[in-house]
C-alpha cells in the first residue's frame, strides 16, 4: 500500500463532490413527504469553515422522510460504531417533529440514500449534525402544519402538533395524522423560512435516558457487520503484505498456491492476492505464496523515537501568545521545566478493517467498515476510474473505530479485486494487518517551561508541542505570560517524521496535551506546597464552567485538601475538549512489588451543554475511562524500523475487566449551551489524572506513558537508590 495515498492532514485534504442521485433516491419512495433544505449552516453552531471543513453540499438534501404509514425515516451519513448515534439522532428528530421515538427508523452511512457527510469522528455528530437534523425536523413540522391548515380549513396559527398529529389548539379532537397528510402524495418541500428549535426546557424525548435501540439485534447475533454480508459467488481475499514499511518486493512465486483447488491468484500492480470461496481457504493459499522482500536498514525504534523527533529541524508555529515570556521570567522566583512523552498507540477495534465489493461494468457497491463512507466512495471511484455517482457505499454496523477507520484502504482493495475477478470480493484484514496498517496516535513530546512567583502564582508558561497535534493545547489557566508553540501536527506532518502512518486516535492531540499540562500543573502545585485542586481553582479566574466541573468532581469524590504526595493515591485533572468541560478524580493503588497500578475509583464530572441522551453520555464517559486506562498503563506500539513488532493482543494489551475501577459520572447541567460532543472528551484526561494519582501514591512522577509495571518497578528502585 502506498502510504501517501492515505495520508490526511487532520481531515482536511480531499475534495468532496456531491453526487447523490436524487432521482434514483426518490424513486425508492412510494410516496410521502421528503424534507429537503439548502444547507446554510451559518448560525447553527458550526464553526466558520476551516480549510477542509464546510464542504457540505449546497444542493438540496433529504434529511428525513415521512412515509404514508406515518413512520419517519431519518437519513444520515453518520455511521454507528458503538457510540450510540443510532439512538440519539432519532431522539432529536422525534423531539422536533413531535412523533413517538419508536416511529422513527434510521438509515446510516448509505451514500446513495443519505446526505453527504464528512465522516463520523471528533465527537461531532450531536454537536454539528444534530442542529441540522433538528432543523430539518422542525421544518417538516411546519410543512405538516401548512398541509393540515389546508385540509382542516383553519389558519396555521390555530394549529399545534402532538405525537404524530396536527390538531386544533382550541379543539384537540379536531386533528389529522401525519400519516394521512403524507398519504397519496409525493411532496418534496424546501423551506427557507427559519424555524426555531425547542429549548431544552421543552424537551420531552431528548434529555431523558434512552437505552440503545440496536441492542436486540446485537445480543442475538442478527446484527450485520460488514464481514457478515454474504453474496452469491463471493470470494474471500488475502493480500500479500511486506514484512515492514518501506520494504520492497524482490521476487514472488505463487505457483504452489495456484495448484490449490478453487483458488484464484491475482497479480496486478501492487496487489498480489489469493482468493478462495472460503476465508480459511484464502488464508491457506496465501501462506503458500513465497515472496522475498528487501527490508531497508533502519535504526529507528520505539526506544529512540523521541530523540529522532526532537532532532527534526522545525521552527515551530506560535498558535497563541499573551504577554511576554521574558517579562514572566523576571517575575518568577521558581522555574520548572519538564518534558512529557507519549508513544504510538493503536486503535485496535475488535472488528478489523473489512469490505465487501461487488463491481460490475458500470456500478460498484461496497459494504464497508468505515467511519468515512463518502470519502470511501470517492476513493473507490478514483481507484476504479468510475464516476462517483456509480459508486455506492453501504455501511453496516461498525465494530469500533476510534478514529482508525477513516482511511478505507481495505475498501479500495476489495473494489479493485472485485473488478479484476468479476466476483464479489471480501477483504477482511487479519489482526497483524490491522496492527501493521493502522494510523497510530503519533509519538510526541510536550516541553513545558514555567515559573511561579513568590505568591505561588504561575507567571509564565511556555508550552511547546512536538507532533502531538494542536487540539486542547491552548491555555485556559489564568497566566499573564504564555506562549503555545506547535511543531507538526497529528497527521503525517511531512516525510521523515514518523516511520509509518499516524492519525487521529480518540481525542487526537488532546490525550497528550492534557497529560502534559495537567501533570505539570500538579508539579507546580507541589512546588507551591498547595493542594492541587485549590491550586487549579486559584488559576481559573472567571472560568465558572471549569470551576463548576472541578468542584462537582471533587465533591462526588470526597476530595480532601492535601499536598501531593500524600500517600493516598488521589489525583485530579480538568480539561476543555472542543467546548466540553471535564474534571476527573482518581484513586489508585500501586503494588510496589509488581509495579502494577490498579485504578480503584474514578469520578468524572462533565459539562456537555444541553443533554440529549444522559444514558448515552454516561456510557460514553465510562468507555472513555476504560479505554483511557489502556494508554495509561499498557498500550504502546513496539517497532524496529518499519517492522511492527506488535501483531496481536498477546503483546498489545489493553484494559481488561479486572483493571476496571468503580466509575461514577456527574453530568453537570448547562441547558443554556447547545449540545456539545461526548465521545472523546473524558478519555483525554486519563493520562494526567492517573499520573497525578500515582505521584500522590508513591511520590514518583511519570513523564512517559504508559506507566507499565516494568517502568514503575524501575522507577521505584531508582527512587530507593537515590534516597540512600
Amino acid at each position: 500500500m502506498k502510504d501517501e495515498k492515505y495520508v490526511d492532514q487532520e481531515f482536511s485534504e480531499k475534495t468532496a463532490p456531491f453526487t447523490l442521485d436524487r432521482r434514483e433516491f426518490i424513486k425508492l419512495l412510494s410516496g410521502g413527504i421528503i424534507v429537503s433544505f439548502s444547507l446554510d449552516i451559518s448560525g447553527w453552531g458550526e464553526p466558520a469553515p476551516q480549510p477542509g471543513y464546510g464542504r457540505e453540499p449546497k444542493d438540496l438534501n433529504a434529511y428525513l422522510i415521512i412515509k404514508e404509514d406515518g413512520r419517519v425515516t431519518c437519513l444520515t451519513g453518520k455511521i454507528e460504531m458503538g457510540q450510540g448515534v443510532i439512538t440519539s439522532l432519532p431522539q432529536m428528530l422525534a423531539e422536533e417533529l413531535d412523533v413517538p421515538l419508536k416511529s422513527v427508523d434510521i438509515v446510516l452511512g448509505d451514500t446513495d440514500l443519505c446526505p453527504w457527510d464528512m465522516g463520523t469522528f471528533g465527537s461531532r455528530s450531536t454537536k454539528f449534525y444534530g442542529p441540522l437534523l433538528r432543523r430539518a425536523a422542525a421544518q417538516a413540522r411546519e410543512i405538516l402544519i401548512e398541509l393540515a391548515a389546508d385540509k382542516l380549513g383553519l389558519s396555521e396559527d390555530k394549529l399545534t402538533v402532538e405525537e404524530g398529529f396536527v390538531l386544533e389548539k382550541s379543539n384537540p379532537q379536531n386533528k389529522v395524522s401525519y400519516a394521512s397528510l403524507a398519504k397519496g402524495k409525493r411532496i418534496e418541500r424546501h423551506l427557507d423560512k427559519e424555524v426555531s428549535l425547542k429549548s431544552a426546557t421543552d424537551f420531552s424525548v431528548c434529555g431523558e435516558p434512552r437505552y440503545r435501540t440496536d441492542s436486540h439485534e446485537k445480543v442475538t447475533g442478527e446484527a450485520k457487520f460488514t464481514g457478515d454480508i454474504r453474496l452469491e459467488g463471493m470470494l474471500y481475499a488475502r493480500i500479500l503484505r511486506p514484512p515492514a514499511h518501506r520494504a520492497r518486493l524482490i521476487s514472488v512465486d505463487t505457483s504452489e498456491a495456484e495448484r490449490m483447488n478453487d483458488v484464484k491468484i491475482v497479480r496486478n500492480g501492487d496487489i498480489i492476492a489469493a482468493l478462495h470461496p472460503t476465508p480459511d481457504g484464502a488464508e491457506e493459499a496465501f501462506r503458500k505464496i513465497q515472496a522475498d522482500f528487501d527490508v531497508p536498514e533502519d535504526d529507528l525504534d520505539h526506544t529512540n523515537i523521541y530523540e529522532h523527533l526532537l532532532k527534526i529541524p522545525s521552527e515551530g508555529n506560535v498558535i497563541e501568545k499573551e504577554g511576554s515570556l521574558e517579562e514572566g521570567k523576571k517575575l518568577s522566583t521558581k522555574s520548572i521545566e519538564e518534558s512529557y512523552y507519549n508513544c504510538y498507540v493503536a486503535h485496535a477495534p475488535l472488528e478489523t478493517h473489512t469490505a465487501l465489493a461487488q463491481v460490475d461494468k458500470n456500478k460498484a457497491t461496497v459494504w464497508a467498515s468505515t467511519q468515512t463512507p463518502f470519502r470511501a466512495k470517492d476513493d473507490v471511484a478514483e481507484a476504479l476510474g468510475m464516476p462517483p455517482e456509480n459508486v455506492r457505499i453501504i455501511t453496516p454496523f461498525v465494530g469500533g473505530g476510534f478514529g482508525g477507520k477513516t482511511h478505507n484502504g481495505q475498501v479500495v482493495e476489495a473494489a479493485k479485486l472485485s473488478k479484476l475477478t468479476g466476483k464479489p470480493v471480501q477483504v477482511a484484514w487479519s489482526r497483524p494487518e490491522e496492527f501493521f496498517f493502522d494510523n497510530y496516535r503519533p509519538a510526541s513530546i510536550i516541553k513545558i517551561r514555567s515559573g511561579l512567583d513568590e505568591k505561588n502564582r504561575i507567571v509564565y508558561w511556555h508550552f511547546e508541542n512536538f507532533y502531538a497535534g494542536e487540539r486542547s493545547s491552548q491555555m485556559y489557566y489564568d497566566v499573564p505570560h504564555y506562549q503555545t508553540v506547535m511543531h507538526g501536527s497529528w497527521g503525517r506532518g511531512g516525510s521523515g517524521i514518523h516511520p509509518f502512518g499516524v492519525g487521529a486516535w480518540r481525542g487526537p492531540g488532546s490525550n497528550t496535551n492534557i497529560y502534559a499540562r495537567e501533570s505539570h500543573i500538579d508539579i507546580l502545585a507541589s512546588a507551591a506546597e498547595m493542594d492541587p485542586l485549590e491550586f487549579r481553582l486559584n488559576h481559573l479566574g472567571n472560568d465558572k464552567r471549569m470551576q463548576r466541573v472541578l468542584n462537582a468532581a471533587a465533591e462526588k469524590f470526597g476530595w480532601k485538601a492535601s499536598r501531593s504526595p500524600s500517600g493516598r493515591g488521589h489525583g485530579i485533572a480538568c480539561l476543555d475538549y472542543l467546548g466540553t468541560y471535564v474534571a476527573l478524580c482518581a484513586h489508585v493503588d500501586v503494588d510496589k512489588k509488581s509495579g502494577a497500578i490498579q485504578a480503584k475509583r474514578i469520578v468524572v464530572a462533565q459539562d456537555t451543554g444541553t443533554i440529549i441522551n444522559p444514558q448515552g453520555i454516561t456510557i460514553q464517559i465510562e468507555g472513555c475511562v476504560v479505554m483511557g486506562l489502556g494508554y495509561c498503563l499498557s498500550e504502546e506500539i513496539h517497532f524496529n524500523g518499519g517492522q511492527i513488532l506488535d501483531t496481536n493482543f498477546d503483546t498489545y494489551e489493553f484494559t481488561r475487566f479486572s483493571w476496571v475501577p468503580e466509575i461514577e459520572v456527574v453530568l453537570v447541567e448547562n441547558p443554556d449551551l447547545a449540545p456539545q460532543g461526548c465521545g472523546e472528551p473524558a478519555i483525554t484526561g486519563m493520562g494526567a489524572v492517573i499520573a497525578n494519582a500515582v505521584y500522590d501514591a508513591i511520590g514518583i512522577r511519570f513523564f512517559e506513558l504508559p506507566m507499565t509495571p516494568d517502568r514503575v518497578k524501575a522507577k521505584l528502585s531508582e527512587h530507593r537508590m537515590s534516597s540512600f
Partner: protein
Amino acid sequence: MGRDIKTFRFTLNSKPVQISARKDRMLLWVLRTELGLTGTKFGCGEGFCGACTVLVDDEPVRSCQYPIKDAEGKKVLTIEGLAKNGDLHPIQMAFVDHDGLQCGFCTPGMILTAYSLFLKNPKPSRAEIIRALDDNLCRCGAHSRIIQAIDAAAVSMGGGSSR
C-alpha cells in the same frame, strides 16, 4: 482443499448437522461460511480476544482455534441458539436492559462466556464474573455495564450477587 475431507456430525443449536470439511478447518470458518451463522465473530485469529467464543458441550472454546474434527458428536451452541422461539435468554435480556454493549462486536462472545459460567456457578460473585470474562476483550469500554448485566441476569435466574 481436496484432501482429508470428511463428514462431521454434531448438534448445532439443538439441531443435528452434518458437514463435509477438512478435519483441520477451524470451527469459526465453517460456522460463518458454510453454516451461515455470522453471530460468531472473527476478532484476532489467535484465541486472544474471545469474539469467536462458542460453547462445545457447555465449555467455552475459541472457535478460531478449534478444529471441526474435535466437535464430532458434540453439542455446539452459538449465539443464534440462545434465544428460544424468539424469546431472549435472560442474559441477552439483561444486556439489553443494562446497555451492556456498544459496538456489539464482542457481545456474542461475552454472552456465551457468561452463559457457561452460570452452568457451573449459578450464583457468581462480582469477582467470579470478572474472572470468567477477563480474557474476553472489549475495546469500547462497556465493561461496567457488561458486569452489571451479567450480575442482573444471575439474579433474574435465581442466583447472582452472592458477594
